[in-house]
């Protein structure tokens, strides 16, 4: 029996696992790198063990240290989260060998899926549709996608459209794969320009039961990494019979490797509903919350219980079992059936509520999920009639193996007449966005630094399945947390759950637009624009969505120029209010000669604000019909053309964040004075972010062409080229390979040719 779980991970996923552990009465052990010492996941844990160093290879990727940490802290199980060691078969094996419970699939299953090349062959043999691998790429094969065999989460993928690029891209992919996954093996496969990414959540117990819990669509991607995920899939919803084929294929995939625990089988699908196996992720997915919302299941709970030998049929109520039990709109759906639930009668349905909720109805006619015996043919054979009896037998086995007494609420017993052969009941629609500290407009450049504030309005739950329509927030940060250069810059996952897809999308967009996200550039505006996009709302999502609808347009700030200008004015007035030390009019003059002048910088340019408080009210250039209704250091209310507009203003060192329904605006106050000693020489190339210089291609005195790469900086697990801004001479080169540089550090100076 598990009493204490060490989560071999950080940030939001560590907190997510802890949340379930808490509700199961299991204590929580964290590990942390030096950079994460003050992270919430560390503070929250019952015990935490330091992993000295910062980079993943020094810390979260060091299996022996983590196992030792578990033993030292008295943990009896390890949950790997996602990423890091979650799909490392050797680690899983070492955990088990150390006598700890591994909350995940068997090392063998991980190993089989770990090599993408081998996994595809295995899947093809099991009858799962796959895209053939391209060994010798010719012009006819183009475009092709290079993938890391050991990769996952989209990292290391590169599209090649021109044969000439192939060697270079292969080289880069290998280098990235080696750095990210410790294995340089890469392979090519045909690249589908407009595929849809559909995946199936699998749950399998150690007794041979494999269940397809539900599908997710994750087609909105950037650089092959998922940005928006949802359940159910709009494509699957509108394609008759697709769900049954998809679920069958997913079960076949899992069964082929005797899979146990939570896993995800990923497919690439076309608009006609044809799909191909991509890979199987042998772990919990980042996007698992959307499935939790629509099924009401706590997937981490299932992982933990399965790791203790529980029987799946007892854990996942099926739609058939509940179909007669009305679920009212928005009513929480218990993940386990209460004992004694009469699944056959509508008698318990509250009066006046329809027995079959319209918006949350289970798609009728969809094939039912089933338990497949290990290695069984998944061609559709199903023995629904005898299933209940089998499940009951399995359940008793589970009870005896885990030693949990009958009646233990964690694993409920099945009611009489329970039909476990159906898919889990689903309800409504859930959409998750990954809020990243990255700049979509600057080639998705990851950001690092302090997140002063992250506040999403209307959040109903954190890390937990919402009871009804609402917002779920999974975040590993708290206000003031730093996003370091060492790890993924995801700030939070925000999950919207509503009766319909449109409500989920628009509700989420609204909440994000109003969220206070202060400190770093994020992809928030892009997310909002995608969620509000007519094509997205129509369900026309595919992996090329961002390209087709023009990234530049989608990444445009929600706040237009006018809003920026008005927000700058609000910032200036809030600043003036904060500076009032005495109750005399702000900026009072007995002989007025000029207005107050403040300049704020945004990505789109400088906004100069000039204003003067007079007896007759605020006088400000460019706004003849503006009235100042109130100004406080954190709140400014203006009347613009007869409409009252309220602005929330938050001031941080070198940053002012103004939030209003017109759109969020981040402003950098331009200092009144410049210190000449802080000026840099013209032609200086500054580090765009903190990172490590990995290669230097030139030396001082070299002639360089405009656009020529001078050096490479690795940050956020990506290589960034620093190119010559103009043709000229490298007059100074201040870094060497291996050197760690801070944001804004001068890397080199190029004197342009006269």
């Amino acid at each position, binding site marked *: 029996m598990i009493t204490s779980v060490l989560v071999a991970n950080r940030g939001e996923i560590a907190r997510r696992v802890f949340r379930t552990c808490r509700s199961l009465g299991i204590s929580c052990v964290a590990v942390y790198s030096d950079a994460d010492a003050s992270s919430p996941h560390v503070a929250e844990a019952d015990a935490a063990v330091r992993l000295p160093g910062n980079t993943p290879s020094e810390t979260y990727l060091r299996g022996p240290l983590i196992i030792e940490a578990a033993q030292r802290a008295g943990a009896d199980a390890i949950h790997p989260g996602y990423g890091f060691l979650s799909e490392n078969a050797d680690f899983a094996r070492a955990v088990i060998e150390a006598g700890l419970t591994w909350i995940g699939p068997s090392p063998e299953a991980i190993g089989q899926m770990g090599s993408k090349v081998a996994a595809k062959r295995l899947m093809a043999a099991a009858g799962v549709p796959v895209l053939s691998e391209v060994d010798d790429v010719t012009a006819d094969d183009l475009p092709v996608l290079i993938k890391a065999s050991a990769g996952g989460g989209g990292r290391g993928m590169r599209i090649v459209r021109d044969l000439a690029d192939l060697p270079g891209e292969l080289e880069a992919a290998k280098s990235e794969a080696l750095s990210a996954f410790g294995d340089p093996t890469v392979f090519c496969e045909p690249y589908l320009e407009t595929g849809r990414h559909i995946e199936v959540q699998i749950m399998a117990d150690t007794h041979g039961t494999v269940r397809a819990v539900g599908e997710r669509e994750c087609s909105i991607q950037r650089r092959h990494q998922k940005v928006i995920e949802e359940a159910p899939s709009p494509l699957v919803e509108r394609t008759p019979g697709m769900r049954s084929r998809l679920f069958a294929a997913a079960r076949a995939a899992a069964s082929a490797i005797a899979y146990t625990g939570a896993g995800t089988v990923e497919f690439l699908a076309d608009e006609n509903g044809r799909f191909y196996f991509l890979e199987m992720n042998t772990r919990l997915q980042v996007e698992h919350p959307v499935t939790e919302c629509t099924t009401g299941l706590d997937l981490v709970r299932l992982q933990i219980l399965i790791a203790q030998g529980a029987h799946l049929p007892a854990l996942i109520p099926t739609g058939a079992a509940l179909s007669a039990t009305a679920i009212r709109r928005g009513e929480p759906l218990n993940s386990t059936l209460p004992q004694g639930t009469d699944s056959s009668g509508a008698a318990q349905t509250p009066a006046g509520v329809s027995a079959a909720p319209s918006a949350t109805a289970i798609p009728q006619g969809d094939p039912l999920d089933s338990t497949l015996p290990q290695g069984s043919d998944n061609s559709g054979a199903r023995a629904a009639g005898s299933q209940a009896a089998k499940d009951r037998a399995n359940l008793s086995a589970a009870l005896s193996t885990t030693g949990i007494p009958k009646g233990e609420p964690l694993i409920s017993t099945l009611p009489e007449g329970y039909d476990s052969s159906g898919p889990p009941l689903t309800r409504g629609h859930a959409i998750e966005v990954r809020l990243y500290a990255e700049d979509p407009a600057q080639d998705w450049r990851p950001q690092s630094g302090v997140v002063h504030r992250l506040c999403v309005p209307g959040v109903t739950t954190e890390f937990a399945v919402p009871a009804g329509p609402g917002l779920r927030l999974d975040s590993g940060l708290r206000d003031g947390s730093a996003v370091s250069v060492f790890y993924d810059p995801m700030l939070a996952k925000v999950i919207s759950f509503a009766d319909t897809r449109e409500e989920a999308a628009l509700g989420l967009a609204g909440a994000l637009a109003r969220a206070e996200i202060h400190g770093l550039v994020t992809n928030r505006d892009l997310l909002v624009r995608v969620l509000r996009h007519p094509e997205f709302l129509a369900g026309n999502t595919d992996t090329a969505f961002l390209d087709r609808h023009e990234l530049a347009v989608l990444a445009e700030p929600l706040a237009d120029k006018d809003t920026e200008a008005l927000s700058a004015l609000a910032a200036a007035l809030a*600043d*003036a209010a904060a*500076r*009032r*030390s*005495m*109750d*005399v*009019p*702000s*900026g*009072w*003059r*007995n*002989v007025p*000669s*000029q207005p*107050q*002048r*403040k300049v704020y910088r945004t990505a789109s340019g400088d906004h100069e604000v000039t204003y003067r408080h007079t*007896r007759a009210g605020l006088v400000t250039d460019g706004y003849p019909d503006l009235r100042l209704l109130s100004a406080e250091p954190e709140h400014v209310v203006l009347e613009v053309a007869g409409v009252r507009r309220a602005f929330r203003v938050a001031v941080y060192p070198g940053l002012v964040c103004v939030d209003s329904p017109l759109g969020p605006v981040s402003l950098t106050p331009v200092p*009144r*004075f*410049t*210190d*000449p000693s802080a000026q840099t020489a013209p032609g200086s190339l500054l580090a765009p972010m903190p990172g490590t210089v990995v290669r230097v291609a030139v030396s001082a005195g070299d002639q360089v062409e405009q656009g020529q790469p001078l050096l490479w900086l690795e940050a956020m697990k990506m290589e960034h080229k620093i190119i010559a801004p103009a043709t000229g001479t490298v007059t100074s080169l201040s870094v060497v390979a291996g050197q760690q540089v801070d944001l804004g550090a001068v890397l080199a100076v190029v004197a342009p040719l006269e």
Partner: protein
Amino acid sequence: MTTLQSTLDTASDEYAANRESMLGKLAELDGEYAKAIAGGGPKYVERHRKRGKLLARERVELLIDPDSPFLELSPLAAWGSDYTVGASVVTGIGVVEGVECMIMASDPTVRGGSSNPWTVRKTFRAMDIALENRLPLINLGESGGADLPSQKEIFIPGGRLFRDLTRLSAAGIPTIALVFGNATAGGAYVPGMSDHVVMVKGQSKVFLGGPPLVKMATGEESDDESLGGAEMHARKSGLADYFAVDEQDAIRIGRRIVARLNWKKRGAAPGPYTPPLFDEDELLGVVPGDLKIPFDPREVIARVVDGSDFDEFKPMYGTSLATGWATVHGYPVGILANAQGVLFSEESQKAAQFIQLANQTDTPLIFLHNTTGYMVGKDFEQGGIIKHGSMMINAVSNSKVPHISILMGASYGAGHYGMCGRAYDPRFLFAWPSAKSAVMGPQQLAGVLSIVARAATLARGEEYSEENDAAMRAMVEAQIEAESLPMFLSGRLYDDGVIDPRDTRTVLGLCLSAIHTTPVAGADGFGVFRM
């Protein structure tokens, strides 16, 4: 706590007329301010800008903290003279890095920023205020030195400038010179006598004698930079403590210097307070256009003091002068306000007692003027009005608590002295546009002259021409009227500025805050009071 009531009828015709009259005077005032702001006019302003330089007021605005108030002093200096309104210098109290400082900025668009007799007086007044109130002095200099045609009025008294600079320093008050341009000959002693000196690359010119003079004196060939450039003074002579690359850099450095003064106010901090209960805007309608009509100063006090809360002292005695206690922006004050114009023996004795009480409790005093002077006449002379008036003047002269005078209406005769007129060194003295100040009212003065002339003529046995008398009276009345108006007096530096009545509370607050940079302490003793 005694909350004042207001009986001001804002719907009355009188109020409307008073208001209109005051607004008219304020509009006139704005016109005069515009002249000061315009400086040397568009041509010279443009030429100055083309050199990449900031105007005097722009330098001040950049120097002081964002959104902070700036109390400009003597803005009408030189009004009514041959020189430009403002006297080619801007002075005032501003907040730099949280420190209230006296700021002086020469206006190089007006005859190269050279000093005329009014410039000198305005500068001296600012330095007096700095000394009395312990305000660090920041000089934004760019001046061609003395305006040579008027050198006779400048040269001898002007030497005080350098004396006062070093005396400020000796008194522990830091002096900072930011040299934006010329500071030559005598002007070179401004940086020379200052504690901290910042010079601007390529702009500052600080030498005793320029190249032509040097050539004449010794035959040596030289140039501006080697004689007095910023770089030379920063690297060689050591006169420049800081080398600024441009004007904004000089101001940046100036602010850093102030930030490092570790300047602390030594006076008591203000207490909590609430604004007045009555609208300060109504101060426009309190003073009648015709000063012969008295007004109740409590209507003013109710719109100036915190919470309109005024505890009156001796309210039933000497009712022509209201005295009492209040706070303004949290600073405790005693207020003396003329209620019926004339000061009688009772009022004089009441004032003398009240001033002593304020000194006993270290409470600053505010004088609100509307007086025609001490009462004359047989009964009053016999009643000892001279003795009693002298008691009041004795008390006000020897009082050591800070005084602030506001001329609301009339301020005539010895009443002006008793109410702490300019000669009695109030820390600050401001006038409303409605104020008038003279030895007596214009009609009275003309009448007195007429009576004296008539008597002399008749004594000589000649016939007194009524026609000539009327002409003489009209002429004298007009002259006295003009010379008792606030702009005229302000032009001669007899006040620190003419203010909008609605700004009275703000101005008092700023002055009291500046005053409390020094400790407030009352007098230990007074002159012998005649009883």
